[in-house]
């Protein structure tokens, strides 16, 4: 296959993998649950995006037809990731997990826990 396609694919693959990794890294090293929550929910979306685009490009190039179905996975992730994050945040607040001391407006989480107005 042409060099530039291979180049693009390779770059996308590595980039995606890096984002995936960063997501997990964030999950690993960030200090409290709420901050950890950011890592996976986000990094993954783009990370997966890159990987899937790479795969699309490659398959398209190999099979000779335009392969777009990987987009579906991205679509699903985009739809579900926020809900996952939301549910997890709810559980965290339900368990009143402690957060970084420097967190601003900690007490809002208490209001949020009761689903009251601030």
């Amino acid at each position, binding site marked *: 296959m042409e060099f530039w396609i291979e180049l693009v694919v390779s770059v996308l693959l590595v980039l995606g993998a890096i984002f995936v990794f*960063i997501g997990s890294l964030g999950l690993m090293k960030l200090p409290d649950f709420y901050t950890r929550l950011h890592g996976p929910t986000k990094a993954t979306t783009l990370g997966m995006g890159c990987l899937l685009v790479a795969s699309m490009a490659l398959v398209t190039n190999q099979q000779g037809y335009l392969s777009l*179905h990987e987009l579906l996975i991205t679509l699903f992730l985009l739809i579900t990731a*926020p809900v996952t994050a939301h549910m997890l945040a709810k559980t965290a607040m339900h368990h009143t997990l402690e957060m970084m001391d420097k967190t601003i407006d900690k007490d809002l989480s208490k209001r949020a826990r009761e*689903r009251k107005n601030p």
Partner: protein
Amino acid sequence: MKAKPRFRLLPMPLHSLLLLIVWLLLNNTVAPGHLVLGAFLAFVIPLLTSGMQDPQPGFHKPLTIIRYVLMVLGDIVVANFEVARLVIGSAKKLNPAFVAVPLDIEYGLPITILASTVSLTPGTVSAEISEDKKWLYVHVLNLTDKDELIELIKHRYERPLLEIFQC
């Protein structure tokens, strides 16, 4: 707003369109056979599942929709680099925060879309929605200016949604 589906046979036209597209995506083809089958499914499945849908405000302004989607996608990319930076950097520098964003839009679907967008875009996760659906609680990974953030959310994301759902 108990908007009855506009067409009895095609209760959710947008869904149907989406389904047809998804079908073609799934099968990686626009072969006529699949077009027919896809169309058929796009017609039948909504009929089956329309009962399982709470009535929601209808969509308007297709162009706005497209613009909104593209914008969000862009923001997602930015958001990821942003978060990547924060994650790699030392946790000391972070100053996380809880922010309550007042909502103007009503109804489940629009709010859900907004909350999702917020979750997908820079440094924020929608943690909770107040019972009266007037407030969106957001956890911010690294807060610089609270009002600025609220402003951003309301202008950049809520307004177009208001337009789209006309409520």
